[in-house]
């Protein structure tokens, strides 16, 4: 029973809850027990409050009973489901650390908009999930507290920055989770941990209450065990929010219904394979798994053709100028005055800034603030920042040009399966290059999803590591993107294999 519960999807659990075969308290109890059993090894969580989660579960069971008593059929779409949150998303009264010493003792005074929406949909906000400090990294090794372990091989990284969210879903410690994606921080850890990870279009989901890293790139999205579950969570969190002026005024479709309609229509998708994503640095086992997935699409009757994204090789460079510039500005707020770490040695007001920031930030955050400050500084702005924004235009144009011919673009999510802890920590550039396939999507503001598409050969320390397939959709066409991902998922069984940490 417990084994079944911790690896079930939202749709399976909702059915059981609706039919009265399961209570939310039982489900939450099983997830808490699982977390206590494995999180000492996986370390996905920065903290969790089991008592508080059970109280939310009890309240959900009561709501359900009241709805039934009143003859109302439906509860919220996430009624009674435990959803983990990356520790950069505010939940009123809970810690909000960004895995940084700077915010080690911070408690959120309010709910993020996505949190408010999860609660309104009946979800249980479950735990604070680890990340690379301030979401800067690809492995969680930049967390000030601990490195999360990949549930498929504890010596390896879960990816990042949302590594805790991905590992928790993969290890049965949460039914689904929210993360944030600035350059691949949802899709890459989803790929490395063998779960579904969706980055919605820029503007689709409000960022109010999300700790800002790079505001023209950041987007919140779900981790889940199926594309259907990702669609359900997206439907809950998407939509315009007056508190985030970059969120768009577009209707939120019923994603699950749209996906079902598209599946019924038997539409034959046109898929583009960008040749630039299959070059040097791509692991042969990843290449083979992605190729097999593309063949599967051909088997479904999809038309597959090569496309070109000629500016791909400039994406990482443009990204590290734009993202660091924006982070240097966003992180200026951590000054040790109103909240966050304040140095005990500060003698005067200016000293508070210099010392609190030196003590509160880790190495990667300092490196990025310094790079970002430099590229924005007098005399360098045009050469770096402005040029990068122009290159960004060209990268975005490449995608829009390709979409004149194809419905979606299919690529590997990450060039390799999960790498071993410590492999890239002394070489930031090598770590940055790991995001080469995911970064263009953020620069262009597109929706992208990673779904499981295979495993590497068993090796020392593991029985095979998950491999992710990335599908990149057109702006605000998440329904099509999820339908295309779901068509493949329906023909494979990768998602049915579970990690045993």
């Amino acid at each position, binding site marked *: 029973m417990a084994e079944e519960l911790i690896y079930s999807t939202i749709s399976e659990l909702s059915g059981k809850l609706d039919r009265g075969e399961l209570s939310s308290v039982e489900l939450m109890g099983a997830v808490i027990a699982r977390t206590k059993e494995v999180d000492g090894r996986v370390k996905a969580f920065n903290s969790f409050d089991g008592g508080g989660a059970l109280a939310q579960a009890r309240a959900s069971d009561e709501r359900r009973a009241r709805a039934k008593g009143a003859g109302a059929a439906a509860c919220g779409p996430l009624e009674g489901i435990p959803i983990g949150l990356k520790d950069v998303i505010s939940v009123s009264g809970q810690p909000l650390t960004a895995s940084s010493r700077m915010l080690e003792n911070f408690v959120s005074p309010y709910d993020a908009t996505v949190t408010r929406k999860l609660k309104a949909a009946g979800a249980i906000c479950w735990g604070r999930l680890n990340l690379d400090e301030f979401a800067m990294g690809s492995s969680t090794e930049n967390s000030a507290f601990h490195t999360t372990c990949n549930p498929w091989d504890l010596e390896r990284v879960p990816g990042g920055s949302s590594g805790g969210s991905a590992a928790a879903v993969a290890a049965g410690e949460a039914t689904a989770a929210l993360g944030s994606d600035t350059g691949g921080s949802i899709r890459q850890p989803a790929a490395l941990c063998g779960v579904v990870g969706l980055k919605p279009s820029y503007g689709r989901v409000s960022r109010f209450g999300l700790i800002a890293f790079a505001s023209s790139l950041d987007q919140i999205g779900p981790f889940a065990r199926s594309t259907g579950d990702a669609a359900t969570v997206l439907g809950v969190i998407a939509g315009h929010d007056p508190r985030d002026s970059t969120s768009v005024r577009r209707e939120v479709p019923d994603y699950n219904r749209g996906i079902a309609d598209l599946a019924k229509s038997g539409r034959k998708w046109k898929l583009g394979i960008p040749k630039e994503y299959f070059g040097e640095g791509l692991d042969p086992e990843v290449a083979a798994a992605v190729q097999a997935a593309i063949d599967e699409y051909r088997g479904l009757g999809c038309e597959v053709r090569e496309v070109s994204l000629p500016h791909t090789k400039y994406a990482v460079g443009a990204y590290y100028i734009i993202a660091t510039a924006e982070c240097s500005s966003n992180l200026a707020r951590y000054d040790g005055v109103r909240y966050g770490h304040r140095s005990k040695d500060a003698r005067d007001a200016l000293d508070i800034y210099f010392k609190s920031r030196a003590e509160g930030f880790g190495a990667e955050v300092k490196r990025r603030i310094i*790079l970002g400050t430099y590229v924005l500084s007098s005399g360098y702005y045009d050469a770096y920042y402005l040029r990068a924004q122009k290159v960004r235009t060209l990268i975005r144009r490449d995608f829009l040009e390709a979409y004149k011919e194809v419905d979606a673009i299919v690529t590997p999510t990450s060039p390799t399966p999960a790498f071993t802890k410590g492999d890239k920590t002394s070489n930031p550039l090598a770590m940055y290059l790991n995001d080469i396939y995911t970064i263009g999507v953020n620069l262009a503001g597109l929706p992208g999803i990673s779904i499981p598409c295979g495993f590497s050969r068993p090796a020392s320390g593991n029985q095979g590591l998950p491999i992710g397939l990335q599908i990149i959709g057109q702006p605000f066409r998440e329904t099509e993107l999820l339908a295309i991902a779901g068509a493949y998922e329906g023909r494979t069984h990768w998602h049915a294999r579970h990690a045993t940490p």
Partner: protein
Amino acid sequence: MSKPTALNLDHVAHLARISLTDEEKARFGAQLGDVLGYIALLNEVDVEGVEPTAHAFPVVNVWAEDVPQAGLSVEDALRNAPQRKDNMFVVPKVVE
């Protein structure tokens, strides 16, 4: 674009209001030199006449109705203060 060696860490760290140790200066200098060397790849791109993109989907002139709404209470706003007195944040003396 300038050569990577143009990064004066003391100057930039001062602008960023972060004290760096000598060890950090040496390490970050080398690492950021690598990154800037890689970024120099962008010099090959012909950006003549290309408009910059600040946001993928720019939204302009977002207006809000001028309606008073409740904000954070004083207690909530001060809850995370490193040092407070009455309803104020306390900092070291700013003006001599």
